[in-house]
């Protein structure tokens, strides 16, 4: 993969989110989990908003979830997405209780309904960054 060819916005992992992105690079989805009250949280952040503990671990996620909502993007607000139009981006309820937003692959919006089961797939953007996507189950 030639990093110079990738022209879409890329995440800049922070100190707290680095393990999340490192796992995605290995095609694993992990989530942040409070060690004190065991609440799973996403997106990665320093403090558990339930018990205020700053002690956490990374747990493997199943990668499965259900459709919470979606949108089909027709207008590219960023030039690099112009070649992809139109495409569907899903908001998914993961089995672990948090949500993930990622594009739908292999289907269009006509196949969608609230609650439709999906599974995460991994797409290498650069040598450093892998992004999640979904396919319908």
């Amino acid at each position, binding site marked *: 993969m030639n990093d110079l060819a990738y022209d879409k916005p890329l995440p800049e992992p922070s100190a707290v989110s680095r393990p999340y992105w490192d796992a995605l690079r290995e095609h694993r989805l992990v989530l942040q989990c409070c060690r004190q009250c065991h609440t799973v949280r996403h997106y990665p952040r320093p403090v558990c908003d339930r018990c205020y503990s700053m002690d956490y671990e990374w747990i493997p996620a199943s990668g499965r979830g259900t459709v919470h*909502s979606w949108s089909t993007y027709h207008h590219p607000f960023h030039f690099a997405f112009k070649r992809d139009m139109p495409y569907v981006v899903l908001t998914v309820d993961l089995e672990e209780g948090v949500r993930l937003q990622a594009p739908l692959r292999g289907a269009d919006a006509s196949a969608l309904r609230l609650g439709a089961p999906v599974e995460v797939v991994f797409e290498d953007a650069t040598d450093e960054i892998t992004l999640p996507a979904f396919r319908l189950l």
Partner: protein
Amino acid sequence: MSLRDQACVTGIGETRYTRETTRSQAELTFEASLAAIADAGLDPKDIDGVVPYAMGGVIAEDFVTNFGLPDLRYSAVTPMGGASSVAALQNAALAVAGGLANHVLICLGRGALSTGRITDRIGMMPQFRLVAEHEMPMGTVAPAQFYAPMARRHMELYGTTSEQLGEIAVTFRRHAQLHDNAMMQKPMTLADHQASRMIADPLRLYDCCLESAGAAAVVISRADLARDCRHTPVYIGGVAEGHPDSPSTITQRPDICRIGLAKAAPKAFAMAGVTHADIDVAEIYDCFTYIVLCQLEDMGFCAKGEGGQFVQGGRIALGGELPVNTHGGLLSQAHIAGMNHIVELTRQLRHQAGARQVPDAEVGLVTGYGDLGDGSIAILHR
């Protein structure tokens, strides 16, 4: 102590609203501010508090430099995107009620395309840190895309239709045609709305607001001083701000169809001591048609899920039960981040709205909506 009726809108000012400009945001802001101060019957040197728009290219001290304010003794910003202007009413009311200032200037200028597209600005703002990391890489880079899943879920759960959203756009366009400082004068039919291209499904082009250049400003005065100002004082009866759960990402919000205004509205109604039936006119932040519908529900004008039916049949048009956005709003007047909504509500309550006047308007409300769901509301009365 309640803030009820402690402060008044005494001055309003606007520039012409255009698509582009060669003038700076600061220059536009000063023009609108001078107009608002003159409208109040005050001299610029009477202003002792300034609450400028956080993204407006000016800071409070610029008004010392340019207007020679002898004693700027109160300044603040309310960084809530499109909810900032109405949240600033709360801030200014607190300042004058607390004796920290007599006359507070609130102002907002925008340069539209001349100062860069919204998508370029967003990535740099701290309130968008999480979406910049986790959603912008997916191509979700603009407000239409952030908000589209809220509207889609509403449609799937409650049967809300694109035609119902269109009713909002068409109504506001008709109102704009009655305003000589509204950018969009061309008539719009529901068929035009339905034929407009899809941007981020279910939001079509005509569900999206304008980008505009221009500025608006208001002067907030302590109530006892307001009675000496030029026009009928417009009292801030109730005011509140509200932040949604998961304010920095809609994706992780437990209920993506509920926004910060749901928390703020009951407080503002209680402070003002009025009910929904008392509201004669409403100026509702309308960055997108769906956001109007959602706010009507979250303020309690109808139940969650009933917004689509509520906006149909002329209820929100001039002459209807609850006239909304009598100036055309961000959708058809101009995107001045809701400061134009405060100006319009003040005109309505002064009975200076000309062809757009809601007869005998006594009580009205204005809302703000910003960033990823922040809300603000003020209930004003004459």
